[in-house]
């Protein structure tokens, strides 16, 4: 049954907790990560949200259903996570999904056959695949543009355009979109705006503050942070959109399991410390890479010569922990991948352990060679997600791998 009950009482609970502890002013982000309203179980005082492994809930009274009646429609553990991310992103309502792709595919269901969408051209390969092979069949058309150039975005507007989908920094070349500029224009045109905030997390960037309607996360990455939970999150800026996303989440059933909801919250508590540490290491690593003559190109928004750095600094409080760099050729990339000892050679990113990926054969393999090259995802490009290891160990490991690869 689709009873739409609205958000749980947790938002109010946060305020009560804050008032009780004498917090008059708005709490800082680092504090909100730990004091989000769900940190204490009201029934027992337990120091973390219980895992409610129940699919259904008893009705005391036929015509007054309980807050949650079926776990697909709402589960207390998942609800705590959903309220948590809504609070962190500054939206009105949050949603947890089985994966980042489930969050993205469910959000796209807001559209209908005949609608057109403008999408950032170096979008994640899985999103590209969803758009070009599944949504296209459902009559949704998408145009991929360089979102860093507002004129290009404007040029592809059609009478049936309904939405703009951004990723910034983009994956893997870390191009910067001016969130405010695109969103302001989209609003003038009456378009829905969606933004994948996976790389920055709300710790560094809160797109809703710039008017973005729906913020999406692959929470498998930095939010979860431990390579042990597959999850997606979405946050709606308005009540109306929140209601629509709720109907879709319930109707499609793409929800996150309760144990994973709990694990994700556990990971999120350390978000600020993890991000800050990884960013510091990433800055040092990027500078070191840039100083090497055998590295052709380094992409990192924190580098002084990174195109879009100024725009990025206007909208984000940090540069994140993902660096991409070109080692010169596909052959050399393969040698490096086979020689590194510390980072995990794998897909995914945003974990406590460093992960080195090869976009051409991994995250962006779904894209096809021609499109991939057009978007700067060259055969020599590697993506480094900087973890919590000591950065000098990471540098030494890369140094030995580079030196032995020609």
């Amino acid at each position, binding site marked *: 049954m689709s009873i739409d009950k609205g958000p749980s009482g947790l938002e109010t609970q946060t305020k009560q907790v804050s008032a009780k502890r004498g917090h008059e002013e708005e709490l800082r982000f680092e504090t909100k990560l730990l004091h989000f309203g769900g940190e204490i179980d009201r029934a027992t005082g337990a120091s973390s949200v219980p895992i409610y492994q129940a699919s259904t809930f008893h009705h005391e009274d*036929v015509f007054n259903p309980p807050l949650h009646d079926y776990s697909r429609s709402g589960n207390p553990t998942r609800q705590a996570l959903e309220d948590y991310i809504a609070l962190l992103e500054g939206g009105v309502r949050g949603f947890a999904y089985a994966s980042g792709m489930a*969050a993205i595919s469910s959000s796209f269901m807001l559209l209908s056959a005949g609608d057109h969408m403008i999408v950032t051209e170096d979008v994640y390969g899985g999103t590209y695949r969803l758009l070009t092979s599944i949504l296209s069949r459902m009559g949704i058309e998408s145009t991929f543009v360089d979102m860093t150039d507002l004129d290009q975005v404007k040029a592809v507007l059609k009478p049936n355009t309904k939405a703009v989908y951004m990723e910034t920094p983009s994956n893997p070349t870390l191009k910067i979109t001016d969130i405010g500029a695109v969103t302001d224009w989209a609003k003038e045109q009456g378009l829905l705006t969606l933004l994948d905030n996976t790389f920055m997390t709300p710790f560094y960037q809160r797109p809703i503050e710039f008017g973005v309607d729906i913020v999406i996360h692959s929470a498998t990455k930095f939010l979860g942070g431990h390579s042990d939970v597959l999850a997606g999150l979405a946050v709606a800026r308005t009540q109306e959109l929140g209601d629509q996303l709720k*109907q879709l989440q319930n*109707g*499609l059933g793409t929800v996150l*399991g309760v*144990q994973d909801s709990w694990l994700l919250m556990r990971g999120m508590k350390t978000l600020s410390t993890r991000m800050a540490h990884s960013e510091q290491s990433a800055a040092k690593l990027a500078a070191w890479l840039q100083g090497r003559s055998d590295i052709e190109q380094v992409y990192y928004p924190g580098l002084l010569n990174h195109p879009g750095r100024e725009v990025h600094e206007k909208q984000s409080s940090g540069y994140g922990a993902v660096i991409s760099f070109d080692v010169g050729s596909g052959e050399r990339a393969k040698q490096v991948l086979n020689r590194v000892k510390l980072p995990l050679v794998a897909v995914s990113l945003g974990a406590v352990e460093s992960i080195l990926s090869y976009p051409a054969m991994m995250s962006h393999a779904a894209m096809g060679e021609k499109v991939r090259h057009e978007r700067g995802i060259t055969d020599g490009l590697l993506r480094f997600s900087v973890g919590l290891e000591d950065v000098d160990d990471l540098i030494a490991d890369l140094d030995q791998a580079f030196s032995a690869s020609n």
Partner: protein
Amino acid sequence: MEKKPLNIESRLAQIGSVQEPVTGAVNFPIYQATAYRHPKLGQSTGFDYARTKNPTRSVLEDACAELESGDAGFACSSGMAALQTIFALFGQGDHLIVSLDLYGGTYRLLERIMSKFGVTATYVDTNDLDALEGSRRPNTKAVFIETPTNPLMMVTDIEAVCTWARRHQLISIVDNTLLTPYFQRPIELGADIVIHSATKYLGGHNDVLAGIIVTKGKELSEEMAFLHNSIGAVLSPSDSYQLMRGMKTLALRMDRHESNATAVATFLTTHPAIGEVYYPGLPDHPGHEIQNRQSSGNTGIFSFKVKDARYVEPVLRHIKLIAFAESLGGVESLMTYPAVQTHADIPLEIREAIGVDDRLLRFSVGIEHADDLIADLDAALGAAMAEVEGSTGA
């Protein structure tokens, strides 16, 4: 001599058993990992990213495929997620033929979401081959059946429908939630795709939300793998483990659900507060014969109508042992009021045409002792009759 295949009870009990080669652990471990190290570039252990494939989920998926006599299994975050993944096979301009008496969530998905993408559906009595043929259009791509249906327990002849579907090159999809492969295996009767809300009997404990898809045929299995990975509504590793754990006792539970349901349904047929009882296990049920032919047993849920709609509220208030909640298929008994709960999304005219009215209650019979369930119901029905008659008299 040809080796005799294991009986289903043995295969169920040993799902995931002794498959872990490193430590010999008898139960398969929960792999909570999302990423998998590549031994060398271009080499894979078979696992790259948990959305695409996770070792724990794979054991579950392979077991489901094998139990349903299919070629590939896919575990999803809910029954509705499984259904959505299947429906993504279709696109703009496609048409589906669907069982008239249908779970409300399936109806909602078709009418509120798939319809936006140009997929249309016609609802027919799938046991009426003339009605099926009459609803077929040049753009019809598939037929979707629930048997028995929820909540009215109408039985469809799976083999007849699948044969008809094959003749017209339609994909046949069977929702096997209520019977499970322990009692019924639609792929053996010609179905292309079987779907489960595994939240129900497969999980069996009202504690895991999950959906299962099983496909037959290489092409369909590959297409489903693509959709499953691309849409990403996959089941978590911990819930995959919980589901396998539940499935190990499926045979025992189903046998008890069936015997309890038969006992309680039989009791209700004689109760003065009760009008109709809908249970294919009763000899006078119109689908009894087809059911016995295509299934080796009966489900644990049935529906019944109280004689007076005013009994409903006090009955639900007075039941003590039986919980009033949505869902079904768990070890605990649950009572549902379909008109306001599971089927609220189906328009009144369709609901009334098929008989989901305000006198109908659905009972998911658990594995408690049948006599305790009968006593609880008897007391609640007696109290409801007394209240209603008392207020009428006053």
